């Protein structure tokens, strides 16, 4: 395959950026999108140019490091992570636009790399449980109803990639935050902080400069892990409950 790429280039956080055009040739449809970018970077390095910086780590769809808005879609046209997106989703001769996540709370570090530290700070605000450390507890000591376990698992799938924020017209982190809150709030292990968790994580989310939710549903459509839109309603319910009860 031969492709034209239009890629966001930006030398540093405060530098101006622009979309730069590149031709890449010899792309196999079995390559992942990131391998295609590796091919481009090999060319650029051979030509003595600065390679395109992009985030990646596991390349197997589990770490949440890869990003990229491809032709306007977070993680591209398939519902998966960019590392698991294959070039067979494109046609020979296509022009592909590649941009970083765009959000005030995700400042660009370089080219396609953004700083997602704001997600870490939301987690630090309450995305943990206060469990005694030491020997692992007996697995059956705390019974969890099946429905609750399923609900927790569904939300625990979030890999924190930030596609929800990138896809949302408001740059909102509600889907991410709701996945984290719901995952822990439904479990007995998370119940001591049930109220403070949701209040503190939502407050942190607001402080980081993410937008609010207007329920467009773009986040859930983009999520490579299928965190469902009703998660947001579930978190809203937890938040209103916490405000009513007052944090313990």
């Amino acid at each position, binding site marked *: 395959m031969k492709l034209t790429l*239009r890629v*966001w280039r930006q030398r540093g956080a405060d530098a101006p950026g622009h*979309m730069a055009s590149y031709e890449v040739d010899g792309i196999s449809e079995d390559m992942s999108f990131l391998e295609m970018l590796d091919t481009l970077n090999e060319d650029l390095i051979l030509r003595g140019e600065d390679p395109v910086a992009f985030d990646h780590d596991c390349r197997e769809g589990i770490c949440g490091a890869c990003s990229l*808005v491809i*032709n*306007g*879609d977070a993680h591209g046209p398939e519902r998966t992570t960019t590392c698991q997106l294959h070039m067979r989703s494109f046609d020979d001769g296509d022009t592909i*636009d590649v*941009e970083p996540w*765009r*959000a*005030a*709370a995700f400042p660009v570090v370089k080219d396609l790399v953004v700083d997602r530290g704001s997600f870490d700070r939301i987690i630090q605000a309450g995305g943990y449980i*206060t469990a*005694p*450390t030491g020997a692992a507890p007996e697995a059956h000591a705390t019974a969890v109803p099946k429905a609750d376990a399923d609900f927790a698992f569904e939300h625990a799938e979030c890999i924190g990639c930030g596609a929800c924020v990138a*896809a949302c*017209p*408001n*740059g*909102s982190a509600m889907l991410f935050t709701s996945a984290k809150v719901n995952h822990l709030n439904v479990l007995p292990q998370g119940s*001591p902080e049930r109220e*403070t968790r949701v*209040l503190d994580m*939502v*407050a942190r*989310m*607001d402080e980081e*400069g*993410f*937008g*609010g*939710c*207007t*329920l*467009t*549903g*773009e986040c859930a459509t983009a999520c490579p892990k299928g965190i*469902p*839109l*009703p998660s*947001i*309603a*579930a*978190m*809203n*319910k*937890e*938040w*209103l*409950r916490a*405000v009513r009860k*007052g*944090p313990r």
Partner: protein
Amino acid sequence: MALATRTDRRPSTTRTIWDSSVGKKSVMAVSGLVMLGYLVVHMLGNLKIFFGADEFNGYAHWLRTLGSPFLHHEWALWIVRVGLLAAVVAHAVSAYQLSRRDIRARPVKYAHKRRRASYATRTMRWGGVILGLFIVWHLLDLTTLTVNERAWAGHPYENVLSTFSTWYGNTIYIVAMAALGLHVRHGFWSAAQTLGAGSARRDRTLKFLANGLALVLFAGFVSVPVAVMTGVVN
């Protein structure tokens, strides 16, 4: 293991709600639902126009005596008006502040544009502005009668006929009701999510209710100008 004890004081409940994007959105949802409830009643009242001037004007008169002899003349009406004003102000202010936050959260736009969200969802802000302007026009037209061409105080039936015998009266009204239908279509479902009533199981029911409400309100309100235009009501 000792748990850390929180020593910082939490702000008041009102502060917490108003300062949070989730809380402010719930203010928007509740005030929207209050207005929505009012509109359903208002629409049903309007339909009395199909039963003649006496019935319609009699109904308008009754509204002023509502609650009597306990409430003084027009007090019930004023209580409703104050409540609605509070709802409109709370709704518009929270909509404005949340929209500002949303726009600031995406300072650099994507170069590759594509449509995001449904039409009703995308038009909530401008549709809301249209509704706000319409509310002002509507009050000047049929409450204060300032802009009504053949204003006749105490005779709402005749005033309604006067409004809907002008092209602009009809146009403004029908456009606003279309905006209302769209606003309610996304708004009702949205409010359910905001207030935590949404779930995967209930989603179809909520969407059905939202569409039903939007359609019934649109049809009910628009039937009046259509009836006047076609001479069914004269």
